[in-house]
């Protein structure tokens, strides 16, 4: 193991101990991409809910993998394959530690959140859901936590129920309570909304499901970079997230599944690595997590994911959250000062996404005029069309934060919005 450059690069000193408050300038120095001009203006990157940038530690871990330790994993007896396998399996242990799962066998690597949810739908869903069984989602969900269930509705005849949101973008829990009934088999909701920034009371939502014996899945795509997640404390059955939204590479993500549930789940894709033995008469499937990882995975992505989790850990997720909450409060304050701007989503607890509309100005024009000033935001429905349409809108402009954003950048956003109003109205 000591021979592995990729492993050396990413020792995690975090977890234990108290970290100092975030020094944002030091953090920014770790992200080379932030230091550039876009359309002759300093880049202000506020599209982090779509994807975050990568610190040097992640870039170096991926590159160290290819420079020294790369090979296919698991079956090779030669040294490079053993090193690559060690890096890959070390990533699984890092994820386990980060989510506080009991065992590494509960950590399945996927391409991302989308694939993780599709895995649950196709494997767990196909054997556990029958015609008339009900799945509860929420009005806030990303399309990736809607469409896989609609596909099951077509093939299995399941029924989808939707927890509505109120005018602030908070889930209406009394309605959720009414939706839970003996036919409910699964509750699948996001931890944090990517469109409105709502932080859902996920522990309570899961508890209410558990009390009825209902299986639970949490879409944690927007949570892992911003909040501590402890799957044992939550008692989630499944928890999904994507590497690229937590400062790691794209093309790798995670499905946590509780061991007892994974044991009984059939594979969903067939191929190499997911079997113990193959004969034309009989094939024996491998144990979890390997049963669910057919084919050559994203090996360098695993090295990058380890580095990303360590980056978060070393700075302390609570410190990160504290800094981001300061930025968020400042952003809400600055945006509220702007006449003709309406915030969309004013939930009790919010995380790093702020959606808004400007009177009489289409979101796409706002997005373009902000881009002309170097400010990167996202416009549209953010792959959460039902949530946006709930507010009678087709599109919003969304600014979303990460740990490397600064108070000055928020001020730049506010100034750029005022400029957009000036130009466009």
């Amino acid at each position: 193991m000591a021979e592995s450059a990729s492993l050396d690069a990413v020792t995690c000193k975090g977890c234990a101990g108290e970290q100092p408050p975030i020094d944002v300038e030091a953090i920014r120095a770790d992200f080379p991409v932030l230091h550039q001009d876009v359309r002759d203006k300093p880049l202000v990157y506020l599209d982090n809910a779509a994807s975050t940038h990568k610190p040097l530690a992640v870039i170096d871990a991926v590159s160290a993998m290819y420079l020294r330790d790369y090979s296919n994993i698991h079956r090779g007896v030669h040294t490079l394959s053993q090193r690559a396998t060690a890096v890959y399996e070390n990533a699984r242990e890092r994820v386990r530690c980060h989510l506080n799962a009991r065992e590494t066998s509960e950590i399945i690597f996927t391409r991302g959140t989308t694939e993780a949810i599709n895995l649950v739908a196709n494997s767990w869903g196909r054997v556990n859901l029958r015609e008339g069984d009900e799945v509860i989602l929420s009005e806030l969900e990303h399309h990736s936590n809607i469409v896989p269930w609609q596909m099951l509705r077509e093939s299995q005849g399941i029924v989808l129920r939707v927890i509505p949101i109120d005018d602030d973008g908070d889930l209406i829990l009394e309605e959720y309570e009414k939706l839970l009934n003996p036919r409910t088999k699964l509750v699948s909701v996001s931890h944090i909304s990517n469109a409105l920034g709502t932080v859902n009371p996920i522990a309570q939502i899961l508890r209410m499901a558990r009390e009825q014996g209902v299986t639970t899945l949490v879409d944690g795509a927007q949570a892992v970079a911003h909040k501590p997640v402890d799957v044992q404390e939550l008692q989630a059955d499944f928890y999904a997230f994507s590497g690229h939204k937590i400062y790691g590479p794209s093309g790798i993500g995670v499905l946590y599944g509780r061991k007892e549930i994974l044991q009984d789940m059939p594979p969903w894709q067939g191929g190499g690595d997911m079997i113990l033995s193959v004969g034309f008469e009989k094939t024996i499937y491998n144990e979890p997590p390997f049963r669910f990882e057919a084919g050559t995975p994203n090996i360098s992505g695993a090295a990058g994911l380890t580095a990303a989790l360590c980056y978060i850990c070393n700075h302390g997720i609570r410190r990160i959250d504290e800094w981001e909450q300061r930025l968020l409060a400042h952003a809400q304050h600055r945006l509220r000062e702007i006449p003709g701007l309406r915030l969309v989503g004013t939930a009790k607890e919010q995380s790093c996404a702020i959606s808004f509309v400007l009177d009489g100005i289409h979101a796409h024009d706002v997005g373009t005029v902000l881009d002309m000033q170097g400010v990167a935001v996202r416009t549209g429905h953010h792959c959460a069309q039902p949530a946006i349409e709930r507010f009678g809108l087709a599109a919003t402009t969304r600014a979303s934060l990460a740990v490397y954003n600064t108070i000055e950048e928020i001020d730049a956003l506010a100034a750029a919005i005022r400029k957009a109003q000036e130009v466009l109205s």
Partner: protein
Amino acid sequence: MDLKSLYQEIILDHNRHPRNYGALEGPSHEAHGHNPLCGDQLHLTLVVDDEGVIQDLRFEGKGCAISTASASMMTEHVKGRPAKDVEALLHEFHEVATGKLDPEEAQLLGKLKIFAGVAEFPTRVKCATLCWHTLKSAVDKGATATTE
């Protein structure tokens, strides 16, 4: 970069005060355009006479400044022209809007050359061209245009 390079005064003016806005009663041709990416909707109604000349046309719908101004300026540009010219106009407009044709070399576009500015914003090209695709499907008789 100059904020005005795309949002020039004439575009903003057509966005604020769209020309030929609304729907014609008893149109000879009509079509609906939709940009699924941003939810923009556009409905075009036309009266094309027996000689094949576009006598009148109107548009209505919901969209960004670029798509509204483009539709408004298009209606002014094609009114009184033969419907058979639409294909060549769409082609040239598309070439200019995607930066493939220097606006100086465009033969048919007149003021519409101004949309050369969207070439720098590839995601916005569809906003400018939606009305043209819709017009083409209207004169081709009928179906729904999408920019996808």
